[in-house]
């Protein structure tokens, strides 16, 4: 069993990760993030970024169109809800499969080029999907309004099992457990742990080593007579399936799919998440995803009222000045804060937050442990 080949170091990492995910509602409460919707977003976008990292972090192929797979996953999940059953399991299976199929298609074409051309190709495909969702595919996607459940949906499996939702609009449930609130979070959290384990195995496998080789020097690989294309395509499809799963989970926790999930800004967001956290590292993308979603949800909600409370210890005039200055960076200005933070991290910590943590650890162990941890700070953290 390959599970038992997991190294103890990795097993501890996995266990710690699982504990943090399971205790997240308590751990994140002090920073105002301990509520189900945001935790769900942490988990879902964590999965999305983990998958993206398999492609970008390992093979170095920078895809700018991953949101397309997320969107496709969402649409397939909502359609499964509408046609088959409100149970989330068929929905996420279907979403993952469709995400994989779609990425195989786009990957097959895009991977004919590398570098910037590859990025542009994926970006073009994603924008094409986005625009098609708004125009010719409106019967499938319901355009700008978004694909929603209606009471008259067939739901053949539910009908076959005699499930009746009555007069209210159904919401997804796992054999009777509603998929909103904390149960929904734990469903996503469980998926995140599963995906994290999978990613860990991929990172440690010969396949993962091959992907790293593709990143370091693809030409040399080709000269040795090895065809790298299947490896890159496999990585692309795997990350597409992660994205499809994430999109499916978005629909599970909130059965609505909108085309804006496929917009290029959404594709850019996952790139930001990965780089912010540290591309090529195991934990980095999850941390990056959490950081960005935290900014989006918490910082954007600060208004002058809250700021005034924060600065209430200052004299009135100072308070007003501080509120006026800080209000530029919160509320609708949260993008500004994020942008500044991103710049600082890319300039001073090219390896992302993970590099920051590693430097911190080296600093501490350097102080207390006899200074053996310095020297190779620029190598990407693992």
């Amino acid at each position: 069993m390959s599970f038992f080949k997991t190294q103890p170091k990795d097993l501890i990492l996995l266990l710690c990760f699982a504990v943090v995910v399971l205790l997240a509602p308590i751990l994140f409460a002090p920073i105002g993030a301990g509520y189900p919707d945001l935790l769900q977003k942490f988990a879902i976008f964590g999965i999305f970024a983990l998958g993206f990292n398999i492609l970008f972090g390992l093979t170095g192929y920078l895809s700018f169109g991953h949101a397309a797979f997320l969107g496709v996953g969402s649409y397939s999940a909502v359609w499964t809800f509408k046609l088959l059953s409100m149970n989330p399991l068929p929905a996420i299976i279907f979403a993952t499969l469709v995400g994989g199929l779609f990425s195989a298609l786009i990957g097959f074409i895009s991977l004919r080029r590398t570098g910037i051309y590859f990025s542009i190709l994926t970006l073009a495909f994603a924008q094409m999907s986005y625009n098609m969702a708004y125009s010719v595919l409106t019967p499938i996607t319901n355009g700008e309004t978004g694909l929603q459940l209606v009471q008259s949906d067939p739901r053949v499996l539910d009908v076959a099992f005699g499930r009746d939702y009555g007069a209210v609009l159904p919401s997804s449930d796992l054999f009777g457990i509603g998929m909103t609130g904390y149960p929904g979070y734990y469903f996503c959290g469980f998926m995140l742990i599963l995906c994290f384990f999978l990613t860990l195995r991929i990172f440690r496998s010969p396949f993962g080593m091959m992907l790293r080789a593709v990143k370091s020097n693809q030409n040399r690989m080709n000269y040795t007579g090895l065809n790298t294309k299947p490896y890159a395509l496999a990585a692309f499809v795997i990350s597409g399936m992660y994205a499809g799963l994430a999109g499916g989970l978005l629909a599970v926790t909130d059965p609505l799919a909108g085309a804006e999930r496929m917009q290029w800004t959404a594709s850019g967001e996952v790139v930001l998440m990965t780089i912010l956290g540290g591309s090529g590292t195991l934990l980095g993308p999850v941390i990056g995803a959490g950081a960005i979603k935290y900014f989006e949800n918490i910082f954007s909600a600060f208004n002058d009222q809250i700021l005034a409370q924060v600065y209430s210890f200052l004299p009135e005039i100072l308070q007003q000045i501080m509120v006026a200055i800080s209000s530029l960076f919160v509320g609708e200005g949260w993008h500004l804060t994020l942008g500044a933070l991103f710049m600082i991290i890319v300039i001073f910590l090219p390896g992302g937050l993970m590099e920051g943590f590693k430097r911190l650890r080296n600093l501490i162990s350097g102080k207390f442990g006899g200074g053996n941890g310095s020297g190779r700070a620029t190598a990407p953290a693992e």
Partner: protein
Amino acid sequence: MKDMRISRRGLLQGTALLGAGLATPTIFSSKAWAAGYTNEPKGGTVTLGFNVPQTGAYADEGADELRAYQLAVDHINGEGDGGMLNTFSSKALGGNGINGKKVVFVTGDTQTKSDAARASAKRMIEKDGAIMITGGSSSGVAIAVQGLCQDAGVIFMAGLTHSNDTTGKDKRANGFRHFFNTEMSGAALGPVLKNAFGSDRTAYHLTADYTWGWSQEGSIKKYTEQLGWQTKAAVRTPLGAGDFSQYITPVLNSGADVLVLNHYGRDMVNSLSQAVQFGLRDKQVNGKDFAIVVPLYSRLMAQGAGENVKGIFGSTNWHWSLQDEGSKAFVKSFGQKYGFPPSQAAHTTYCQALLYADACQRAGTFMPSGVGAALEGFKFDGLGNGPTEYRAEDHQCFKDVLVVKGKENPSSKFDVLEVVEVTPRAQVEYPASLLGGELGPYNNGA
């Protein structure tokens, strides 16, 4: 690197830890601390959630909505001059909050996107404990958030949403709308357009490609075709397109002599400005002067489009130059606080906040089913629209509709629209069954 196998003890320990972790969720899902309904206010305050676009094509409207909400909260808490509370026909509110609880609020940015709007509304409900969500400057968003509020068991007081679907096809028991809809716009605009342009016209629609645009296109088509107009084409444009020149060029040679712009917010400002720049209004087609119609108008948009709006017809829910006591009181108190007159978006959201507060006070509870019962069939006056009724069948307000025109000689930068006609309620009323949809039962949540 040694490839160590895991020991039996280690596996057992790990499994036990994982099991304990998996058991934790039951603490949170248990109903031990559940209230009688979602977010039942326990302390001395009650939290309302104001969910408006602060970025995107409708950001101007969103900013004005937020100002109006703040003003409404001031008035409900007994601060300021009381505004329309003094002219409101129901006197239940006494300036000491709602049901004796002080009103506080939280805000969020919908980004004019359904996803972001729902995330923001969820945050307000789950984290901040909001008992009611209100706002939205786009029908797509309003419908998405309305569905969410129905699921969560809180009341949704729709802000600026004009699509028929909000209280038609997609209506929900927990959702209420004060603003009018495209069906009413069409019914009100029809006769005025006939008087102004005659009954032998060919129209070309440019339509924002989402629920509101489709709804308005449908209604305007329906009522203009009743007059004898023809519809040459109806072209869908993406929301927030910015540049509409590629859509306007084909209009020039289409043989149409009326351009109907089913756009709102910055989209309308851009498309109208570009249509005028392309010389559409100076053209003669079929021996008639080319005309442009903007079925849903707002003062903010008219201001944004400047000179270009002169003489252009449209409909609006409310305008600050109205001379009834309610409107005057509102304009005065809004103007004192912010230094300029309110838009129709500000008016409708202010009314919604007041109507919600009043209904809670009359019902003596914040429970959605109780508040809903107090709103259903509620007849009121003094909120700037004359006598108004919240129809029980579809939770839609029925009142007079204003047909307006861009003013030829504006006296100030705010004085850009003039009221052409006040279409009485009877003329714009329709049976609730016309638009379909099911309200379903109220949801009080946990």
